[in-house]
């Protein structure tokens, strides 16, 4: 489908991000997660979804394990240990387990929002967009990317040179091994300092900082951007309104509290908006008429 304007997507992702961050109602979080997963699948990027999920699995598992162990609140005790030296007694509660699970869901949500943003926009357009408004930031970023690539090659080269001068990088003794890396660091450091002067000279020679800049980036706003801005607006209104109604928040400790009807009705409104967004994405992808119209 046609890529969205970076600003449209930044706003949309930020609202989703904000929602995933503030809400702690498991159903709300699940809704957002399902919305993102379905959208990514609709875009035909199941493979990327899998890879991103893989990154999250370990951290999510860690949260699931650590939260019940570290958090001793909650009334429904599932397991109680005897006295362990230093740590003391450990009890695992149903509430702490649920809270950990909720946190893990949030983590997936946040990870996938980044992937979703990447899929809905064009990387170069995002770059252009930022370079127009935050020019120094993008210049620093692109120079850093270039330098990282150069450094990677340089480190490999210097390492080879040092190995042939008899430096042992496989040293078992950690202190000795750190010492072996010292020359590489120093060579790279000096080379970078010298390189930075050359880069500054080149920037100067190409007129950087001499006057008012113009921008080579022209990112067009398409019809679909207006549609998504509409969704953004309505969603934002609901989130703000919900904030005043105090919905989307439940209490886990000392025991579950706050799963009432009001919350669920409000969730339906939010879900309707998200379904509209999904339909829009589906339509743009599959429906010829819409594809040409936007």
């Amino acid at each position: 489908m046609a890529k969205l304007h970076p600003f449209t997507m930044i706003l949309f992702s930020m609202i989703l991000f904000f929602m995933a961050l503030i809400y702690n109602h498991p159903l709300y979080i699940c809704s957002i997660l399902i919305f993102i997963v379905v959208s990514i699948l609709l875009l035909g990027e199941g493979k990327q979804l899998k890879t991103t999920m893989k990154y999250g699995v370990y951290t999510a598992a860690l949260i699931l394990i650590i939260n019940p162990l570290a958090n001793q609140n909650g009334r429904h005790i599932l397991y109680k240990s005897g006295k362990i030296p230093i740590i003391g007694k450990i009890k695992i509660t149903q509430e702490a387990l649920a809270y950990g699970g909720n946190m893990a869901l949030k983590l997936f949500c946040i990870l996938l929002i980044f992937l979703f943003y990447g899929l809905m926009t064009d990387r170069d357009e995002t770059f252009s967009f930022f370079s127009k408004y935050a020019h120094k930031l993008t210049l620093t970023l692109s120079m850093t990317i270039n330098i990282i690539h150069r450094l990677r090659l340089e480190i490999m080269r210097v390492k080879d040179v040092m190995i042939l001068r008899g430096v042992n990088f496989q040293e078992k003794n950690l202190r000795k091994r750190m010492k072996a890396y010292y020359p590489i660091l120093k060579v790279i450091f000096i080379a970078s300092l010298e390189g930075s002067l050359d880069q500054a000279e080149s920037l100067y020679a190409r007129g950087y900082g001499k006057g008012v800049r113009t921008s080579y980036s022209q990112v067009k706003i398409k019809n679909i951007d207006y549609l998504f801005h509409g969704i953004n607006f309505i969603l934002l209104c609901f989130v703000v309104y919900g904030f005043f109604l105090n919905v989307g928040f439940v209490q886990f400790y000392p025991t579950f509290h706050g799963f009432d009807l009001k919350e669920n009705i409000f969730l339906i409104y939010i879900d309707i908006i998200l379904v509209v967004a999904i339909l829009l994405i589906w339509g743009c992808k599959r429906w010829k008429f819409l594809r040409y119209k936007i």
Partner: protein
Amino acid sequence: MEILKIQDLTYYYPRKEEPALKCVNLSVTEGEFILLFGKSGCGKSTLGRVFNKIVPEFYGGKIKGNVESKVDIGMVFQDPEKQLVMEQVEREIAFGLENIGINYEVMRKKVMETLSFLNIWDIRYKKTYELSGGQKQKLAIGATIAMGYKFLVFDEPTSQLDPVAAEEILHILKRLNEELGYTIVLIEQRIDKCFHLADRVLFMEESQIIFDGAPKDFVAWSYKHEKNFSPSVSNYFVKLGEKNIPLTVKEGRKKLRKNLFLKKPVVIQHETKEEYGNREAISIKKLYFTYENGKEALNGVDLKVFKGEVLGIMGENGGGKSTLLKNISGLLKPDKGNLSVCGEVGYLSQNPNDYLFNDTVYEELKYTLDQKGIKDLSRIEKVLKNLELLRYKDKNPRDLSGGEKQRVALGSILVMEPEILILDEPTRGLDRDLKERLGEIILNLKNKGKTVILVTHDVEFVGKFCERVCLMFDGSVAQVGSKYDVLTEGIYYATQMNKLFSGYVDKIITLEDACYITDHLKEGVI
């Protein structure tokens, strides 16, 4: 029309006692192609930076005299890596235009035209760090010409490139000058390929311009003042005492045809100086190596390197030379095949800066000994003396000149007293005098019984200092043998002298060969 005038310019870099430029007077007319050269450290790069005011506006320092320019001047630097700032090719070209506030429509047109002029249209969406050295330099040129400068200064734009890419860059300069009438100032060390392009030659020595005139006049002047800076072809004819000296192989051959009156080609028989017998230092049989990404770098290499010889390995980038060296030096383990190396291998990489991190030259050499667990510190003095570095013993190696830095790096290898020495592109960035000196060091090592392997694109250097040459192509050896077999009869891996004499007198490689044969032809005996 005069577009730049420099009067009595003297310039000191900040905190320097010696002037970098001394009483420089220069006038440049529109559309000229000027070649500016001289020994390393003579001030040519500084003068190049005066043109577009980087000196003194960027560097600071003290300046006396007048610089008047009627046009804006663009500059392209030596190292393409360090000039590029953006991530994408198209944006890189646009970067300068954005800086000077050109509006979008004009900018698009200029970017498009630059891409077409340089024929880099197909790589416009590529990432700049994915490009080859030659492409990067092309892009740097593109980024400068897109800004609309009609006066361009190039500071050794080909010194970091292989010869194919270098020639492409020189061709671009020629087109800029001839097709568009741009004024070009080219600062160069390797002059064989660009001398004839110039309308005017400036030769600098000790911060001053000591020659300013036509290329043909320079050749005679250079010979008279023993400067050793003319192209090889011209050098030969100057030595014969000819007038109207040719600058290119084409002109040279025309003159030779008149001079030699040969009815059929002469072939000189070179004595095979030494039989190496079975004294192999390195023996390689059917060697294969594939990188983790699946790239087959070595494809059944067969090669013997004999003890006490200087072997030159040449070939295209990506032909497997570096991989072969890494296998020989033990950095990589071959997948298949036999590789036996007798004795320790010393390896000097292209960039001497990779070696230098200690505070003094002495410590730099000692570091290698410490790592190798060698207690004999007398080796350091001995090596420093051989490399004529003893007086810099307590200096910081980073403060030395390019040639000296390279010798320190070489010293840090030689203290291990390796039996086999591998030099990777050792002539890169060196002027002729420094090259000669490096050659002497190599011959010296050879006389001490060391085996030296040179990997280089520099045909002239190989022709002069190696006995055998190996050409690598696509991961295997294309030809290996005496330099008189490998470097003659070719169209690419041939020296200037060989190209000059090819078909008239065969098996000529160096200037010495050429002078020798001409003397004998005159006398009627070969």
